[in-house]
């Protein structure tokens, strides 16, 4: 027992020596991770709302395109899309930096999921509510704005927060196309300092520190949205 404790203490004793050395690199890497996460989530939201509206539109061509897109996004790994954009496009004359490529690729891949979440939210509101809006003289824009989308947002919010957490985790894939985020730095440090377990556990802890508050926030928002939404018209 004591022996294990000693080993554990020895393991931990590395950190005080190494942390000051890693700190600057890791903080910059965290920033990049957050940029990739926020950027690709924003791209995914825009694509998702557009696709959801397209899927519910009266135009059969738009519906078909949306279905096709969602089907592909559901079946192809995000990493393959990243490789396709980062390694496949330059020979065709299109060159992008790693971070924008990661934002675009993860956004494109997540957009399909977001579309399905938002569509489910819109469909969950009863058609009679739309009609009730018509009878009080609302335009369809007003109905979407004051009746359908607030409810769709409330219904989709927990799922969207979970998607945000997934995007945060998926941002680690950007390291494989050399975007200088947490995992890339972790790999670099582990090969220069020969301390893979130390740096990987530390980076893992950083991801948890970012993800767990998000999942708490999601629960909090879910409760708040429910009681406060009416005052936010």
């Amino acid at each position: 027992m004591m022996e294990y404790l000693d080993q554990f203490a020895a393991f931990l004793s590395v950190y005080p020596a190494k942390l000051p050395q890693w700190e600057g690199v890791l903080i910059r890497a965290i920033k990049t991770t957050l940029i990739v996460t926020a950027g690709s989530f924003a791209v995914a939201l825009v694509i998702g709302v557009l696709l959801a509206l397209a899927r519910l539109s009266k135009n059969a061509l738009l519906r078909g395109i949306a279905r096709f897109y969602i089907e592909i996004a559901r079946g192809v790994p995000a990493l393959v899309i990243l490789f396709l954009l980062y390694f496949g496009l330059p020979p065709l004359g299109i060159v992008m930096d790693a971070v924008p490529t990661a934002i675009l690729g993860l956004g494109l891949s997540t957009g399909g999921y977001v579309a399905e979440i938002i569509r489910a939210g819109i469909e969950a509101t009863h058609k009679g509510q739309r009609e009730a809006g018509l009878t009080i003289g609302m335009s369809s824009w007003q109905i979407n704005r004051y009746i359908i989308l607030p409810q769709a947002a409330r219904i989709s919010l927990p799922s969207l927060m979970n998607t945000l957490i997934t995007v945060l985790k998926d941002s680690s894939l950007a390291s494989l196309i050399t975007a200088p985020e947490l995992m890339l730095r972790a790999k670099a440090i582990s090969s220069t300092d020969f301390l893979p377990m130390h740096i990987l556990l530390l980076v893992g802890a950083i991801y948890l520190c970012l993800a767990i508050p998000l999942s708490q926030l999601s629960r909090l928002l879910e409760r708040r949205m429910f009681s406060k939404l009416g005052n936010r018209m």
Partner: protein
Amino acid sequence: MEQFGDLFTRSASHLEVLLQGAGVTVMITLGSFVMAVTIGLVLAVARTWKIRPLNALIAIYVEVFRGLPTLTLLFICYFGLTYVGIKLNPLPAAIIGLGLSGGAYCTEIFRSGISALHHGQREAAAAIGMTPMRAMRFVILPQALRITLPPLGNYAIGLIKDTAVASAVAAPEILFRARNLSTETFDTALIYLLVAVLYLVMTFPLARWVDHLEKKRKAWQ
């Protein structure tokens, strides 16, 4: 036309290599799926015993392994464990890494499946003299499994896609072969498009099956 024929021959020769990788992808998927479902079932059932410290441990496991990126887990299994003297080959490292994170998902899937059943079912089983063990085995689990089929199917689709990450620890699956192939032939765009198609071919039937299950469930409600 000639160009088109050339495209065809190139695709055929790439596919020959990629399909070998597909075999490995399937192996990783099956291995980690079995591991994840086993972990999930055991932990979800163990949770129902309501032993406080045990439940706390399970909650920590779920929260931690769902919050970690798959890539981080794989690196820990492949590079990190060397620190404690464990040297895993790429394939087992990928299966264990994906299995551990999948186990956390499956625990949640089975937990909600079990809790979706009315507690009256348990009481009814007790009323006809079943032990809690037998009630779980013959009454609760069979129903819970049926409820959890669609989310399990979705998990399996996600898992097939996640195996692509194993290329980063040099497991010779589709994407790993694709990377080598593209550095040899510089035919990058075509190779990755073929890879995308291969993944679609693997996930598409599963996706249809899940949609079918969900439609059936909706019609049933």
